[in-house]
């Protein structure tokens, strides 16, 4: 018995000595919110980075969903145990970008540690989202997607349609009635705030908020209660009553499942959804841009990204930051970006990666994968660069509340949007005061 335990401790001791960290490799902690298969891809990238050099050991840790990860990061920062890299999502961007004492802007990090940084390397739809009011990139975009439209080709065939709707007018007049007659629910969507509010403004080049959508500073007001939105959401309710649109609740999956079940013929999801759809949908589907209202604009513009970025937290040593910079350098290599893009469906964020994918013929085999990037690269307008608004998680809560009430018939679109604007502005004012 004693011999056994001696051997075990010897082996344990040996394994400790033989792991790279015992050799003095600097450890870098990366907290992320990528679950399931996405997390496995993250792990692979980290393993590849670790294998490519021996100075630094990168350890990714899954901390739960986006909100949980941000909360974990905040708590860790308060307890002085923050990680080096943390993944923060779009709705939380304002919270971390305005925390000047907590974050180390990635542009500064990369410049200081000799890794080149040029904003023009990044595709245009991605560049500006995670920058501060001076335009400096604070976060490094990591997993970016944009909302796109998926449609069931069988359903379209059955309904005698060939082309998906390019405009909402087209949807209402040509596509929806035909789909309904063929026995389908014409349309469902999975995220009222992201797809049908934020990107609605972007697609139509309408301002979401004052102060350049919040980028200009903290004294910002939301502008959701505008004629275009009122029209659009009144139409949504009307379509619900007419049977052109069905709301399956807040959960993303419930609305997607209806599309997979072939109950719904058109579904609005994320550019990253096509991977899962390829596995689960038993019908051929097409991918295309979000429709727009011709009555609002004749020159629709790009959508912007959702997803998250990687932020570096303050309070670490220079040696560790060097490691972080090295990792970011690794991460933005075209082949690594292409790998991430291919495996997960998130868009390739650098132009070089996009070009690599094109050269490799990836989009010939998977045309759906390109739609997101193409839509992001559409000619932009002044209001289509994204947003940076504080307490935005709670603003989205307000939106969900009001849209829920709209769809259950408790109020009309005008009231809903007025309430959203009021609630959101209260939150924004509070945020501005909190971060003074």
């Amino acid at each position, binding site marked *: 018995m004693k011999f056994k335990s001696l051997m075990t401790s010897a082996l344990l001791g040996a394994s400790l000595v033989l792991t790279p960290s015992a050799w003095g490799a600097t450890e870098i902690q990366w907290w992320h919110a990528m*679950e*399931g*298969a996405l*997390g496995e891809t*993250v*792990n692979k990238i*980290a393993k590849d980075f670790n294998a490519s050099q021996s100075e630094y050991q990168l*350890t*990714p*840790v*899954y*901390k*739960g*969903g986006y909100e*949980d*990860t941000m*909360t*974990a990061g905040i*708590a*860790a920062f*308060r*307890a002085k*145990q923050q990680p080096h890299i943390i993944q923060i999502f779009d709705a939380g961007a304002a919270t971390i970008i305005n925390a000047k004492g907590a974050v180390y802007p990635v542009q500064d990090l990369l410049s200081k540690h000799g890794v080149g940084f040029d904003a023009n390397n990044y595709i245009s739809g991605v560049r500006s989202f995670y920058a501060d009011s001076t335009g400096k990139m604070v976060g490094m975009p990591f997993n970016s997607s944009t909302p796109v439209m998926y449609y069931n080709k069988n359903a379209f065939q059955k309904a005698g349609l060939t082309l998906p709707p390019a405009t909402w007018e087209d949807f209402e007049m040509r596509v929806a009635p035909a789909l309904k007659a063929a026995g389908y629910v014409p349309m469902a969507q999975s995220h009222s705030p992201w797809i049908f509010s934020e990107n609605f403004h972007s697609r139509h080049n309408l301002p979401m908020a004052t102060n350049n959508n919040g980028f200009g500073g903290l004294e910002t007001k939301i502008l959701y209660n505008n004629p275009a939105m009122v029209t659009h959401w009144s139409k949504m309710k009307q379509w619900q009553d007419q049977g052109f649109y069905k709301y399956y609740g807040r*959960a*993303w*999956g*419930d609305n*997607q*499942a209806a599309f997979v*079940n072939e109950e719904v013929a058109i579904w609005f*999801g*994320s550019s*990253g*959804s096509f*991977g*899962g*759809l390829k*596995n*689960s949908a038993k019908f051929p589907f097409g991918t295309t841009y979000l429709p727009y209202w011709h009555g609002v604009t004749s020159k629709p513009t790009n959508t912007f990204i959702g997803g998250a970025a990687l932020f570096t937290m303050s309070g670490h040593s220079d040696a560790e930051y060097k490691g972080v910079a090295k990792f970011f350098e690794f991460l933005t290599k075209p082949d690594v970006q292409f790998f991430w893009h291919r495996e997960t*469906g998130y868009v390739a964020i650098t132009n070089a990666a996009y070009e690599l994918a094109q050269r490799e013929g990836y989009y010939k085999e998977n045309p759906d994968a390109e739609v997101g990037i193409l839509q992001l690269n559409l000619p932009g307008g002044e209001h289509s660069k994204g947003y940076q608004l504080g307490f935005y998680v709670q603003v989205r809560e307000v939106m969900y509340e009001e849209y829920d009430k709209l769809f259950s018939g408790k109020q009309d679109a005008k009231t809903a949007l007025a309430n959203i604007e009021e609630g959101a502005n209260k939150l924004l004012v509070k945020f501005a005061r909190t971060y003074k």
Partner: protein
Amino acid sequence: MRVFWKRHQLLNHLLLLLGVAFLALPLWLVFASSTHDPGTLIREGMQLGFGGKFQETYYGVLTEKKGFTEQVTAATMMLNSLILGLGFALGKIVVSMTAAYAIVYFRFPLGGALFWVIFTTLLLPLEVRIIPSYKVVADLGMLNSYSGLIIPLIASATGTFYFRQFFRSVPDELLEAAKLDGAGPWKFFIDILLPLSRTMMAALFIIMFVVGWNQYLWPLLMTTDESYNTIVLGIKSVMQNIDGNRLPEYNRGFALAILALVPPVCIVVFFQRWFIKGLLESDK
């Protein structure tokens, strides 16, 4: 006819069987469904009969390693739940017994005041102070640790009052006799009170084990490192995966639910008598 009804009490039995079915049927559906593959579940809904995938699903859930460190399986989560349940139950008993002993058997300055301090914890359940409790634990650096998981939960006085009731029911003669024999407070506690309290300790242990095992909100808040997930929390992460962009794996979620349920149910059923005694004693 009346005699027939009375003797066979068919109506009573019928109502009781309905009651038992009301309690058991939903779980049966969950269990049976967990043995099917997700495709069947999506097409046909939850199942009453078995689907032949019991071994595959449960074995997979118990042993499939996830995470960067590749250590988190359902077995790990059950282990965490076990640690939480045992640690919480043991901790509660030790802390409450000693505190109750002090309050009941001693007159000392501060005694009265301390009693009221302990009492106030009954007034404010954890749910009401979750955010600041989280902040405190975070500030202490106790997030993602077993101690952080267990110790804050012990801060309520239910156990102390439970033992207080019991100690007050112990006859004074015992103490008088012990004092006559020259026994000090420590000896009295160890040699006389503890053996007397055995049944009560067992009863409270069972109840607290179940309470600890079934905790949801507190572990949810303070474990962001998945290797500390309890099995009850594991259900939530599977469910969140279901709502992501992938094929919903209902069968795994259901399997986890069953795994989360089996240990506490077994304990409650096997130790029924003690457990019920403990519940009833603690209502005073």
